[in-house]
């Protein structure tokens, strides 16, 4: 089954976002653009224990959407639902609805392998393959049966701002690169298979500030072609690069034995950081807690 994008449908603001406080209607096109993902009451649990509950939000095309929040609030778990990487964890179960261009991502006829061709992921710790730089980038196109491998490698490396640094040593081992270069290699690797969405799970947390800056600049360029969802611990980073920000917290039940993540606020980044609606959001972004 192939997932093809359906034409966008305008919906009323109240139907699009269900958070505790509805945002006042702002310049309309920010919330009426093409949607890539629609999450409706999504909950994920590992072995029966809930990790995140009741997330409802939409992710829009050609934007950078940031997920922020304290540790353990389920940001990475939620991110991994979007490309069905949680399928690899035997004890994980996903409830609720995740629509990708109107199609249920977890539908019976949907093949997770096809999903991952269109929704790529960059991980927290750079994970280049134990191969040469060229073979790292070429691996994706090769297994997907794409042609013009040389061109794709060059385009991907240029797109990840790595081409000038490595064009003379494409056959070198990828492990010989610095951490920042390795992470850009992983981004280039994801780009080489032409996905529509790139998910990034704390891509800069293992890197130095200069590499981080380069990757943040990259994200601003990349969003013209891709839709990006990024999980980050770094609030300043979320404020710098993202268009919309979702803030999650950790909820405890009455016995304090169970903890799970909850979506508190989801709005344009400017509003979340300068004029948040929920006091908990304000405490977090101003650094009082978390």
């Amino acid at each position, binding site marked *: 089954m192939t997932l093809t994008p359906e034409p966008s449908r305008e919906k009323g603001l109240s139907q699009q976002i269900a958070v505790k406080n509805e945002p006042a209607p702002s310049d309309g096109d920010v919330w009426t653009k093409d949607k890539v993902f629609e999450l409706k009451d999504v909950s994920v649990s590992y072995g029966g224990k809930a990790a995140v509950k009741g997330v409802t939000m939409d992710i829009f095309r050609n934007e950078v959407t940031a997920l922020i929040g304290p540790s353990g609030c389920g940001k990475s778990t939620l991110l991994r639902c979007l490309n069905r990487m949680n399928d690899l964890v*035997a004890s994980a179960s996903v409830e609720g609805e995740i629509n990708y261009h109107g199609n249920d991502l977890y539908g019976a006829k949907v093949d997770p*392998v096809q999903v*991952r061709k269109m929704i*790529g992921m960059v991980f927290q710790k750079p*994970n*280049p*393959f134990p*191969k040469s730089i060229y073979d790292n980038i070429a691996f994706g196109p090769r297994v997907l049966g794409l042609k013009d491998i040389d061109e794709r490698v060059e385009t991907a490396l240029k797109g990840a701002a790595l081409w000038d640094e490595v064009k003379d040593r494409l056959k070198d081992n990828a492990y010989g690169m610095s951490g920042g270069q390795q992470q850009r290699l*992983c981004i280039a*690797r994801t780009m080489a298979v032409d996905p529509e969405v790139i998910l990034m799970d704390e891509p800069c947390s293992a890197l130095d500030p200069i590499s981080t800056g380069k990757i943040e600049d990259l994200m601003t360029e990349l969003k013209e072609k891709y839709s990006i969802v990024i999980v980050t611990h770094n609030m300043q980073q979320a404020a710098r690069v993202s268009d919309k920000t979702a803030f999650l917290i950790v909820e405890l039940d009455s016995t304090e034995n169970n903890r799970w993540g909850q979506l508190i606020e989801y709005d344009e980044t400017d509003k979340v950081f300068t004029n948040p609606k929920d006091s908990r959001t304000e405490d977090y972004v101003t650094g009082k807690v978390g």
Partner: protein
Amino acid sequence: MNRMKTPGSERTRLATAGARAVTTTSLSKQPAKDRIKGNIFMALLLLAVTIALIGLTALVVQAIIEGGPRFNLELFTNPPSSLNVEDAGFRPALIGTLYLILGVVLLIVPLGVGSAVYLEEYADGNRWWNKMIELNIQNLAGVPSIIYGILGLAFIVRGPLDLGFILAAGSLTLALLVLPVVILAAREALRAVPPSVREGSLALGATEWQTIRKQVLPAAIPGIATGVILAISRAIGETAPLLLVGATTFVTFNPTFFGENFSALPVLIFQYASRPQEEFKVLAAAGVIVMLIVLLAMNSFAVWLRNRYEQQW
């Protein structure tokens, strides 16, 4: 260096010199107790290595001393003889061993690697039958080789397979004997490949099989090759199972893979050593040297092959 001669600076200078002296002392000398303990520990470790090496070296040196006078290159080319001890050689046994090992390798590589891939990548480790399989493979690796000989006699030579007392049956028996070693080594090699490599591959839209074949297996090849080398080294020297599946006759002509009369180096060495004449015992010792050379040659080739693959990604 300019110093103002004020009382304050003088005190500072003395204090700094004192601090430096104390630091130098504490950096340069370990407390005597710790140093002695460290040295004793190292001496004990060195002793362990020396004992192990002495045992090994004594074995090899003994074989060379006893068999050396008799050793010549004709041992590799002459057929054996129970009468003419001067011209006797090991040729058919040598060829028999080589054929046997060839058969073993052809069997254990696909079966062993395939089993390890299935058990490691596809099987659900929590199911009880998979846990039993894991336990049993480890047990099988320790079963005495004579029992594999009986297995071969009952099921391969006679029984369901009914191959008869042919070299291929010996190969099959030896393969079963060393298969657990290969499976265990291959599993360890597969486990050593970091999960991040698999995740990265799957996140690009590769299937599980593509991930295994193009990422995990190539990265695991050195470990798998080590397992195969260990298996071959064990199989070369096994005598008991071969005696049970038909390597008993005194063979003087070259064996064939599916032929009946075959022999192997350890068997022939044993046969020579069983003879009453003293010259045959010396011949047997020379045979040990022959076997060590064959073992060394095979292992070196396998290690060279492994190193060659290790450098290509």
